[in-house]
């Protein structure tokens, strides 16, 4: 019987008649669970490695990859490598930051790539045809309006989820499909090319020798991490994801919180869309943000945020995205073809999620 209990410890089935498990004497211990019970889990790793891996796994992995490159990849410690890697990852990080908030509420946002395309399609239309013929005005609007449009579409996602009770996966699938279509309709399916130094600054400009988009990424990550740490909103996000009905009974404005996270996810996708078209000096509604939703979700998962909601780490997401980027860079720098790099990338996701899995039991 003792064996039976320890095996069931992980699954924690609820006896159907409403006997609360918490009532049991074995669960009364006010401190952490009995280590003997935890060690029943089969593992080939010593316990201290495990707990370290669960808490700092992603950070340690990133450090190891960095060290490897420092010693074995020629010209790794250069400003150029730094800029290349971070510019390639910045849009993923920006989108994944919004995705982390959405996932923290227990949701998912599949529309981010399509919203990037929408933002990217709107910007050139504005600055190529500036209102009142005023180019400066047009440039300013081209930064603001596309981001707001993407945010409004994010709000639409949130509305479907909160007011029409559609599951987030399906609700955001709608714009995943339609968003890119709308972007193509707006641009008549044409590639928009341009030459606008002011606008391109968001992607190509530099401040103190660092690409502006990298600075933007760092600012967004820090602000989001700070908000999650100190604000009431951050606590509401985690409460909604952790136990929605309990949160509602405690007076948490559940609908508003959900609307906001999807709107923020849209806003950040819009910003990422602007960066991508600025780098390319052209906007192709067919290409901008393609596959971004999966890269962003992967970064969130590798970073240690469980998809079940209720817990979130923005810095973890940054680290997760950096790991994925550096793996790809390392493999390419050592002559491994991109096709094989994809397989290795998938393996990394699997390992990362496996190592952290006990945190989400």
């Amino acid at each position, binding site marked *: 019987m003792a064996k039976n209990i320890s095996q069931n410890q992980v699954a924690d089935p*609820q006896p159907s008649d409403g006997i*609360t498990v918490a009532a*049991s004497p074995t*669960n*009364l211990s*006010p401190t952490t669970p009995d280590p003997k019970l935890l060690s029943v889990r089969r593992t080939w790793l010593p316990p201290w490695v495990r707990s370290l891996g669960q808490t700092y796994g992603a950070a340690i992995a990133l450090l190891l990859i960095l060290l490897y490159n420092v010693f074995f990849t020629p010209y790794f410690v250069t400003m150029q490598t730094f800029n290349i890697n971070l510019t390639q990852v910045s849009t993923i990080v920006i989108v994944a930051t919004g995705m982390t908030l959405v996932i923290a509420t227990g949701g998912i946002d599949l529309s981010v790539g399509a919203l990037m395309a929408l933002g990217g399609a709107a910007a050139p239309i504005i600055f190529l045809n500036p209102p009142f013929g005023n180019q400066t005005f047009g440039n300013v609007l081209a930064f603001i309006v596309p981001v707001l449009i993407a945010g409004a579409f994010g709000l639409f996602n949130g509305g479907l989820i909160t007011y029409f009770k559609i599951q987030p996966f399906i609700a955001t699938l709608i714009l995943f499909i339609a968003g890119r279509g709308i972007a193509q309709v707006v641009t008549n399916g044409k590639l928009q090319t341009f030459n606008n130094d002011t606008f391109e600054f968001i992607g190509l400009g530099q401040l103190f020798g660092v690409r502006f988009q990298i600075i933007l990424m760092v600012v967004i990550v820090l602000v989001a991490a700070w908000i999650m740490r100190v604000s009431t909103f951050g*606590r509401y996000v985690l409460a909604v994801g952790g*136990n929605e009905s309990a949160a509602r*009974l405690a*007076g948490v404005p559940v609908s508003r919180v959900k609307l906001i996270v999807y709107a923020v996810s849209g806003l950040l996708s819009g910003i990422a869309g602007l960066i991508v078209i600025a780098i390319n000096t052209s906007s192709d509604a067919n290409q901008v943000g393609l596959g971004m939703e999966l890269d962003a979700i992967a970064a969130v998962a590798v970073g240690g945020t469980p998809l079940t909601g209720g817990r979130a780490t923005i810095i973890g997401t940054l680290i997760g995205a950096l790991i994925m980027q550096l793996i790809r860079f390392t493999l390419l720098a050592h002559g491994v073809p991109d096709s094989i790099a994809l397989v290795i990338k998938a393996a990394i996701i699997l390992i990362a999620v496996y190592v952290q899995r006990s945190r989400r039991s």
Partner: protein
Amino acid sequence: MEQSEPLLTPLLTMEGITKTFPGVLALQEAWLKVNYGEVHALIGQNGAGKSTLIKLLTGAYRRDKGTVLFDGKNIDFHSPQQAQAGGVSTIYQEVNLVPLRSVSENIFMGREPRRFGLLNWKLMNGQAAALLARFGIRLDVTQPLHTFNVATQQMVAIARAVSFQSKLVIMDEPTSSLDEREVETLFEVIRQLKSEGVSVIFVSHRLDELYSVCDRVTVMRDGQTVATRTITDVSKLELIALMLGKELGEVRKQGVTAFGKENAHHAEQLLLETHQLRRGQKLRGVDVSVRTGEIVGLAGLLGAGRTETARAIFGADTLESGQIEIAGRTVRFKSPKDAIRAGIGLCSEDRKIEGIIPYMSVRENLTLALLPQLTRYGIVQRKKQQTIVESFIKRLGIKTSGPDQKIRELSGGNQQKVLLARWMCLNPRLLLLDEPTRGIDVGAKGEIQSLIAELAGAGLGVLMISSELEELTEGCDRVVVLRDGQSVAELSKQSENLNQDTIMAAMAQGGDEITVAKEKDGDG
């Protein structure tokens, strides 16, 4: 009045059934005997073990110990599918069929009659219609299931069960979502089944129903089988006494709970008053009032509408009709947020599902409802928060390694204290407590009870739902008894009619027949 032993060997004999879940003994040497062609009721309070027993029979769970004899054979089903093939079908409260497929497809799902590898629609529809006609139900079996009402869907589920040549059909609270006319149709079907020699196990919380359709009744309590009786030999009051584990008319010890003896809360202003709260089948006219400094108990059997009443007052569920007055003003809360702003707090019955945010800390759980007041420019005032949390940990004696500990790591009693503190720190005027001491160890239970008494002493109004009669008689100034979604009696210390017998009598009969308790003492 001993167990009425049948002369024939029973269809089903479950004996010595024991089942443990991690740390919980769900069933201990439970037994159940069902005769051939018998409608057998299975009743008990929440947590008595009815569902567990049924799930062990149908193979949804595996038993630790015990024997099951079914139709003369020793059986051990590994899954509900296997049980169905073996002659035991279960019909759940929520009909688990496929709403978009036709009635006949639902009845024959998984074993559709085929011809040349294709579905034989004609045969299938014909057989389905014939099956339903046996119960006097005529409908177009080619229509999708969801176009019919719940009662009809249930008939379809029963027809499906019967088509498996079931010898035993288990119905788990089949009437809870039906109106009176639909219930009568269901009973007709049950009587038809019985006349064909099929046995039925009927789980229900509505005692009245048992008398119109059941032959015998088995009562369970705390994971054990208490008794099996012939329904005509037992009164509702006796059934309730058996379910609650009380002897009727017995002299009872005082001071079983930690509620203070004085109870001199002089109820002053009227704080809460409800008029005829209605919502679906669960709330059908509830009147309850609470004054400042008063503890009012809400008693009733499972499914009587106690939790629904609390949720309706708190704005968690919308009402169909009825009126709620707070301090003399009619209110209509759109959400719990509005109720909280009006100074009301609700501790729900199920801490895990509706109380704690498991992965958040004690600090965040405790201050969750207070956050709007702790917020300045969108940011939580950490120092203020910490001071409040520490003071409540100290005041309530919450055993925790610190405010940062995750609430899921706390014991049930300490979790409950955190949830009480969640409301106390708001300085509410009215607390709605749904089974505040359920599933909590004895020590913490006493602490929580004296805390509730202390709060009322300080002028707070408390509406307390409890299934423990001692809590109601010792802790409450008044007790409102609910039955089938209606308030049927009000008992109070002041009018000296508040005791365990009167509560049980009201649960059984309603307000007019409280005297029954005095006539029928002892249970033979």
